[in-house]
């Protein structure tokens, strides 16, 4: 199954106001393989969030089509496809629908009309995955932002999706909890063979990806491995480690060519 396309977007165009020529997205095409971690980067207003909303069927494309699991997304199929696609939004507070942690995780399951025992096991598993099981009876006012975001992730995981979308889901977290959460996610992704599409400003988060998509003013300007993209596009601000490597190179220090992660760079400097 791995390697087959789970999401393919063909020639996608969308504008919020059809009276203007202001396209939020124009002629965007790409494919994401099952089990991959893909990241979308781009400046504010480049159409990243619009892309996410299109993929989960919250807005309809003006042109082009979206295929999930080789099934086209439209008004009829969206309810079925949503069982396979989950999304976590930016603001943790507005995503918390249940009164307690476990009620919130169960919300999507209730919509599937599952029986109680099935829900119980799924809620248990999902909360265990994000390490929030101890908090199952707490209400949202007793949780920190990072914890609420973990609950939001559990709520989506409980639905057992194939594709998970994160729409700037970690912006509200401090760097430490963001790094922790990303580590947890990376583990979950491997364990469950999830496909992840993460929309982000964070360069460190982008380097986690297998595939990077760069959006600018509604157009897909580049895609490929993060390393390659950061090396060949000087306008895209690279992650800190790459910046440092380039600076060192500029000072005439002999650094190895090719992209290095932060750890690799640290190892190289301390060698």
């Amino acid at each position, binding site marked *: 199954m791995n390697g087959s396309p789970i999401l393919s977007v063909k020639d996608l165009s969308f504008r919020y106001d059809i009276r203007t020529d202001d396209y939020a997205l124009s002629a965007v095409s790409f494919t994401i393989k099952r089990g991959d971690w893909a990241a979308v980067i781009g400046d504010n207003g480049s159409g990243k969030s619009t892309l996410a909303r299109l993929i*989960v069927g*919250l807005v309809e494309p003006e042109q082009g089509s979206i295929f999930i699991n080789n099934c086209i997304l439209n008004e009829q199929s969206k309810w079925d496809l949503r069982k396979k696609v989950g999304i976590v939004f930016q603001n943790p*507070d507005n995503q918390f629908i249940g009164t307690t942690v476990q009620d919130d995780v169960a919300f999507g399951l*209730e919509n599937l009309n599952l*029986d109680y025992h099935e829900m119980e096991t799924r*809620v248990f598993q999902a909360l265990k995955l994000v390490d929030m099981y101890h908090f199952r009876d707490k209400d949202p006012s007793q949780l920190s932002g990072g914890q609420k975001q973990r609950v939001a992730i559990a709520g989506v995981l409980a639905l057992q999706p194939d594709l998970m979308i994160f729409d700037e889901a970690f912006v509200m977290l401090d760097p430490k909890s963001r790094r922790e959460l990303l580590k947890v996610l990376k583990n979950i992704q491997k364990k469950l063979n999830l496909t992840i599409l993460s929309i982000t400003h964070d360069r460190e988060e982008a380097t986690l990806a297998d595939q990077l998509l760069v959006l600018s003013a509604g157009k897909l300007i580049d895609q490929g491995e993060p390393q390659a993209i950061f090396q060949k596009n000087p306008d895209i601000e690279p992650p800190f480690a790459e910046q440092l490597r380039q600076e060192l190179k500029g000072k005439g220090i002999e650094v190895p060519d090719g992209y290095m992660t932060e750890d690799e760079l640290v190892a190289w400097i301390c060698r």
Partner: protein
Amino acid sequence: MNKLILGRYFPGESYLHRLDPRLKLVAALYFIGLLFFVENGQGYIWLFLFTFLLMRLSGVSYSVYLKGVKPLIWLILFAVMLRVLFTGGGTIYFSLGPIMISRFGLLSGFYTFSRFIMIILISTVVTLTTKSIDLTDAIHALFKPLRLLRIPVDDFALMLSISLRFVPNLLDETQKVMDAQRARGVVFGEGNLIEQMKKLVPIVLPLFVSSLKRAEEMADVMEVKGYRSGEKRSSFRQLKWHLRDVAAIVCLIVLTLGVTFFNTFDFVLLFNI
């Protein structure tokens, strides 16, 4: 932040806390109905005893209950005064035009007073010992038959529980907006009534805007998580009937028998009309 405790739930593990919320709700309504069937003073004393027993069982101090009665005391006294002053019959102690103080008047004043106080006390017992979400569940369960009339009971229950869930957030936000306005030089709690009301506008407007935005985001989340109004949903929150709930029903039966008994046989003649 939470100066206003909606529903004023007091966390606890008492017998009353653990009772089924459906039962508590129905029992409270039943008790209020029962109040209107009492015909003499000893019946009221019997019900008072029961009320105090419940207040004790709830494990919440009496002063909290007094606080519940306090804001309504003038309304109660007003109703009692009307009863006392305008009811005739029995021995008349004083009279001036249409106003008179009679034995009947005093007694019916006492009855009115007892009814009001007990209604407040009993409903306070229920809200103090039941989480608002449990009450929502109870209301949901009790109104379920209305689904047959195509009334969207489930949607209403969800609306109610989401509103309750957002009360703390809204209070938080109000505080933030007030602070933001204070930082811009607004002084709250000063000036005459109209001035003070005008100062509320810059608080209410931003709150409205942010609530609408929040509602939109939530609607998106709910839609993506597969919520469709009118579709059949299962429920993760389960209400279970226990033996203790049966015991409570037995208590209610005893209470009712007591009222019937005291209505039939008068012992304390002093209180009778």
